[in-house]
């Protein structure tokens, strides 16, 4: 394996982590958005906020990681993608601004109305950002990003069947991951009603994501020959693994075993991400720019690998520490939503 391939692997590790952790955060925002105004909706929103509060900032850094590795290791691919896909990436950036500020201010805004507005912004941008990122992935996978400064079509490159289906798939996947995580979080908060609430939603989101994944394969067949062929050959084992994990997670969720469902749900998503990677290999932009051609000079690649090594040694233990503290509820500013009392009635907090 060349060092360029190794850096591409590092890039993919970043993409994987961002999809799982960043995706779950986006999904939590999605559930906040659709939770509605009632008492139950308020509790659901509270659980989502409580769960992602301590970790969302760290999860967000994976995006920066992906961008930096891409422009350092494969700068030409970065420039081509960002100039042709100026519109969806600008919209995604806009979503990130709204999401970050919405989340930061939803608890501190001066009036109830202000808090509500901030929460809505957070929810809405949690829906739009992954959607636009999905259209970007669709544009790349279907070979609509040529090499060069804004060489591709600024509109049809990302407004096409593949992009739209993958955009929707991203939203569904985020919602699915988040719901599965939130089932566990509800159990940690000993809120049985919310456990049931998110189990039902996890099942719904799983079916939606599964259906969209099938639709995705169909549109790829029609419109993205290279990726489709590789996905159904070299990538097939990963597609099968993803399907099996997804089914397994469904069964466990129905049986009320959130603990086992979580790794299976993550496995299903990770397998799809790597399936996409295998299907594109050795291309960064299918049939237009491959890893070797786009790769930075050797010294730079070595530099990236060294930095990645240092990151593994320093950042991974720190992340594990953060997640452990968060899971044990050692770091939390405020209380989780209260458990449901025996009568099944819902108590007001406070």
């Amino acid at each position: 394996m060349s060092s360029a391939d190794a850096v591409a692997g590092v890039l993919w590790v970043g993409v994987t982590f961002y999809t799982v952790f960043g995706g779950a955060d986006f999904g939590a925002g999605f559930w906040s958005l659709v939770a509605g105004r009632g008492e139950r909706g308020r509790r659901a929103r509270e659980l989502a906020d409580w769960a992602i509060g301590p970790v969302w900032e760290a999860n967000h850094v994976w995006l920066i990681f992906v961008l930096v590795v891409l422009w350092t290791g494969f700068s030409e691919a970065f420039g081509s993608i960002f100039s042709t896909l100026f519109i969806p990436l600008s919209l995604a950036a806009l979503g990130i601004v709204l999401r970050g500020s919405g989340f930061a201010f939803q608890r501190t805004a001066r009036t109830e109305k202000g808090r509500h507005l901030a929460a809505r912004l957070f929810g809405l941008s949690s829906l739009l950002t992954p959607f636009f990122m999905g259209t970007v992935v669709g544009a790349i996978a279907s070979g609509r990003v040529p090499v060069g400064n804004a060489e591709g079509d600024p509109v049809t490159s990302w407004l096409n069947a593949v992009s739209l289906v993958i955009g929707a798939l991203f939203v569904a996947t985020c919602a699915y991951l988040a719901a599965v995580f939130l089932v566990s979080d509800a159990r940690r908060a000993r809120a049985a009603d919310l456990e049931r609430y998110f189990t039902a939603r996890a099942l719904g989101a799983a079916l939606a994501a599964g259906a969209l994944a099938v639709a995705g394969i169909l549109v790829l067949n029609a419109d993205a020959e290279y990726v489709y062929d590789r996905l159904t050959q070299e990538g097939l084992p990963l597609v099968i693994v993803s399907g099996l994990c997804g089914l397994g997670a469904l069964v466990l969720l129905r049986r009320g075993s959130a603990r086992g469902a979580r790794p299976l749900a993550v496995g299903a998503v990770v397998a799809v991400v790597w399936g996409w990677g295998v299907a594109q290999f050795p291309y960064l932009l299918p049939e237009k720019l491959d890893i070797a051609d786009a790769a930075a000079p050797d010294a730079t690649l070595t530099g990236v690998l060294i930095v990645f090594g240092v990151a593994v040694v320093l950042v991974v233990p720190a992340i594990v520490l953060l997640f452990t503290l968060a899971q044990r509820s050692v770091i939390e500013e405020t209380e989780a939503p209260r458990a449901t009392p025996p009568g099944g009635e819902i108590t007001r907090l406070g």
Partner: protein
Amino acid sequence: MLDTVVPFATELEAARSQMAFTLGFHIVLASLGVGFPAIMLIANYRGLRHDDPVALLLARRWSKVVAITFAVGAVTGTVLSFEFGLLWPEFTSTFGDVFGVLFAMEGIFFFLEAIFVAIYIFGWKRLSPWTHFWSGVPIVICGIGGAFSVVAVNSWMNQPQGFTMSGGEVTDVDPLKVIFNPAVPYEVPHMILAAYLVSGFLVASVYAVGMLRGRRDRYHRLGLLIPLTFAAIVTPIQFAVGDTAARAIAEDQPIKFAAMECVQKTATHVPEYLGGRCTSEGVKGGIKIPGLDSWLVGFSTDTKVIRLDTVAPDDQPPAKTLLHWAFDAMVGICTLLIGLGLWLGIAWWRKRDIPKSKWFLRATALSGVAAVVALECGWIVTEVGRQPWVVYEIMRTKDAVTGASGVWVTFSIVLVLYTLLGVTTVVTLRVMAHRWREADAEEEAGVPYGPAGEPPPTLPEGAT
């Protein structure tokens, strides 16, 4: 066609405006991200070491402000990394593999910073006091490391080295030469000290305003004293570092220096002008100090200063009057801030107390805004002074810009959005301050993360 309707002649103008605006916005938050945690930990240390509940309360409240500025800064920082591709794809396509390793390093620092900020902010309740204090120390270290990495990229743009090009493509890179380029030794410390200075004066100014309104309790005195002492120590060091930087720029980027001082004729005994207008015949108006410019560059009035028109007009920076004013304002403000620090120092030395005069509080109240102005001025000098180059004498800014159209649309949106973001941030901080004044030490308002256990007390109508 749209270009004739909107005020920007080209996408380039729009892209430069958007970059300048988003960076100018982010630099304030980034400075707070680097400097404020250090001040917060000083208060935390004092609180634990001397069993000082007031210092501890300050540290705890400051950590909530850090949480907000860090969250907003993370967002505006992400926008900047998008802009590397959205606005300057040719720059990043060509040189991303040269300067990218620095950003990869920055990524590690930012990651660790985000993790420990979360642990520190959320750890007040259940971590043991000293464990909690130590969980904050990595924030300070990572802030310095992150600032080094990012500013080293800018230094590299001013003094590019460590790569070989052939046919418009980079074929070889020497990462160590990139990381330790010649501008790093003066630009990096200058920016880190600026971050400390801005944080110190900004925080102190808040409590100065409180004291001017009659809140002269120990809480406010300590809230003023800790950051102001910190800033007063940093400012003279910054002055010396800045002076070194200016001399190095006269050597490394003589045209930038000539534009800062509007030197139209290469000569010795060049006078220094304070203020004035830069014209093709030199500075009009302003205060002239004979020979000082030469003396500042080489400690002798015989020092030769290179003039602007040694290069073609196309290779000169635009807006020379702006540059000249920005440079003068930065130096002038820093001088005044040193004076403020001395005022505090003398009063403390003689009476172990902050100066009694209302004018001292007024000056401190203004010092925060003044420090931010100096910061922006310094950034203008660096960035506008480097034009028309994005990579000094290697790539022009106009050759780096995106081929996509519609940048003026995104710039308009960004302008509105960031204005709202800035206003919301300030209003939120004010509301938090108000709640803190209302609430007891125990009943604090919620942090920006996570749900509040209890909804924060609503303010009576017209309370703010």
